[in-house]
């Protein structure tokens, strides 16, 4: 089982195992270390912040620190966006939180429950969770992870120590990427590193995945060209292709691309619209005003998407809006000339 012992995805391989290994996030790590000195004093924790900033990594590092190599026996790791119903809370979480682990986990008298993407949990599930956190606080500790703390109900927030994670510093990220590449036997050209950093917008996980993919393209040196190729072939680029087609007025082609994305990559309408939003803000040929205007339109259709019956119709309608928008830009250019 050697294959399963050593992680092959670089994100996992280079995920820090202890708090000391964590790069950056100094303040948070210091506070957490203080808890670790006397684990009994550790409160429930709430980690909030954008994706890829180290929330899950810190949670897992805490588990390692508390329980050592057998951490998996004392930790329940649940992804709330996969299992977010009230049933999960009532069954799995409640059962796990109820039993004390004294005598098994050394001197740590509680089990650890890591709930990732908590902001995806339904309201009733959160309410149920609140009770469990209170009752089970002698036998278990929670680490709740979310992108937006505002989506977590107040009573839960008040039971937790809240830590906010900001985007990873660009320079630190760049150095980290080059360091990983070196350990894997590759030379990452600084320009290529910049490109990855820009593209991943402070999401370290995304950046490392791009890096690993680029390494599959070419032995030895990872240059800017290879990185561009990877970025181009990964799906977000298809989303960008779709947006461009629409903005240039080729609605039919844009829609075809949309169906390709849905059909071939299995993306849902909501996921596509979120990527559209993200991609629009990356597009350098649009002014800030234009982006804001488009964003407003996207918001409207994002809302309709949740109310409507057919996501592909809503996306098509959005693309039609893009086509109209693209045409109006074109006309205003023509006028100024």
């Amino acid at each position, binding site marked *: 089982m050697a294959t399963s012992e050593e992680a092959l995805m670089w994100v996992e391989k280079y995920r820090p195992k202890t708090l000391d290994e964590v790069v950056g996030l100094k303040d948070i790590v210091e506070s957490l270390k203080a808890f670790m000195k006397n684990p009994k004093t550790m409160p429930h924790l709430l980690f909030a912040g954008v994706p890829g900033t180290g929330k899950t990594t810190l949670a897992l590092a805490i588990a390692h620190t508390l329980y050592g190599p057998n951490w998996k026996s004392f930790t329940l790791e649940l992804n709330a966006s996969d299992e977010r119903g009230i049933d999960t809370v009532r069954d799995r979480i409640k059962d796990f939180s109820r039993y004390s682990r004294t005598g098994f986990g050394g001197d740590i008298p509680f089990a650890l429950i890591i709930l990732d993407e908590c902001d995806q949990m339904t309201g009733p599930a959160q309410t149920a969770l609140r009770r469990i956190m209170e009752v089970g606080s002698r036998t278990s500790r929670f680490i709740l992870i979310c992108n937006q703390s505002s989506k977590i109900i107040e009573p839960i927030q008040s039971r937790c120590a809240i830590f906010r994670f900001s985007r990873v510093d660009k320079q630190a990220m760049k150095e980290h990427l080059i360091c990983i590449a070196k350990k894997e036997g590759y030379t990452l050209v600084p320009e290529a590193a910049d490109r990855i950093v820009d593209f991943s917008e402070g999401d370290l996980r995304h950046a490392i995945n791009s890096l690993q993919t680029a390494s599959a393209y070419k032995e030895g040196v990872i240059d800017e060209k290879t990185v561009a190729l990877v970025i181009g072939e990964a799906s977000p680029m*298809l989303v960008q292709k779709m947006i461009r087609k629409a903005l240039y007025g080729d609605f039919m082609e844009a829609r075809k691309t949309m169906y390709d994305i849905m059909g*071939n990559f299995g993306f849902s309408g909501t996921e596509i619209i979120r990527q559209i939003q993200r991609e629009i803000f990356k597009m350098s040929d649009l002014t800030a005003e234009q982006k804001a205007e488009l964003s407003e339109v996207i918001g409207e259709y994002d809302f309709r998407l949740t*109310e409507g019956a057919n996501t592909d*119709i809503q996306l098509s309608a959005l693309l039609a*809006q893009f086509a109209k928008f693209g045409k109006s830009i074109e006309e205003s250019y023509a006028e100024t000339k």
Partner: protein
Amino acid sequence: MQKQSDLLWVEKYRPKKIADVTGNDEAKALFLDWLKNKKHTKKAVLLYGPPGVGKTTLVMAAASEYNFNVIEMNASDTRSEKAINAVAKPATSYTSLDSFSGAAKKAGGNVLFLDEVDGIAGNEDRGGVNAILKIVEESLVPVIMAANDPDVEKLRPLKKVCLLVRFHQVRIPLIIALLQKICRLEGVKAEFEALERIAQNSKGDVRSAINDLQSLSEENHRLTLQDTLTLSSRNKDVSFDDTLRGFFSAQSIADTSRLLSYSNVDYDDFLLSVADNLPKRYTDAAELAKAFDFVSKADVFRGRIGTENWHLLKYFFNCLAEASAVNPASYKPFTFITPPIRVITLFWTKGKRTTLDAICGKIGAQCHVSHQIAREQYVPYIRLILQKKPKSPLAAWFKFTPEEVNFLVTMGRF
């Protein structure tokens, strides 16, 4: 004159002479032969065929030409044994006095006409068929019956004692000629294509064709092909394409509303097809965006309707209707995209979706991420890595099955 114009055209132009009855010449000849022949080989005749092809009309025309009395009973009357006996018995028991006086040419005597005999209900009209059989047996006057579907089980005994005369659908050119004649008499200016469409739509049913003509042209004495597109509704099975065509060529919101409220097409399929074809209808970006906005709103209402809030259906229709009439002037005929694009592109993904879910589950287990993140941030990259390095141990590490690996490698290659 007031009285005349109030009439349904079907009644107004119902032929008074046998020769004027449109179509079905063979059936006509057979029937008249039987009627004129005093020594009937069979005492009764059963005229059968689809509705509106002239069965009743022929009987009435024959009656007026040969001067006989028609004693009629149809489905609207109860036809239990008792009722049939009460009406039909006296009528069939005595031949008319006139027929003995040699004035038979003017008064053909009594004829019993039982219309819509296939409508004799099992329970309410208990014993009805037996009573008819008895009357046919004892009758001194000819008995004429008409039915749409002679194959009904309960009519089987009747068929044995009857001469069967089969009526067919009236041929389209004959109907068109008839409609043209009516238009001339009514002073309606009609496009030939419009009449052709009405005739075709009627599926050989003269009555419904005339009714359609009247309802469409009575008001302004003008009839264009456009008018007939909204008509599809009243007919038995309007094709999906016709509804689409009517939708896209509509001249006003009212047109479409009428079309949609009568049409029986599946709402969900129709919505998809409208969305699919919209860019072919509106080639101008601004028009398309506007129309799509309405379709999007219609879809929102469809979502709100769900499976129970059907009272919201009218808003769904309204939004669709608005989408159809963004700019009536820009309509140009085009060929439809069918079947729905989604069905073609996404239909087969259900099996794939399951595979993808399994893959994302395995990624999630190894990398501590949700399915969603796995799909967005891992799958696209792992796919590329596996494409570049097919022998990468990554597949084994994730515990992907060979099918899953194959799925990843081939995905995204259009």
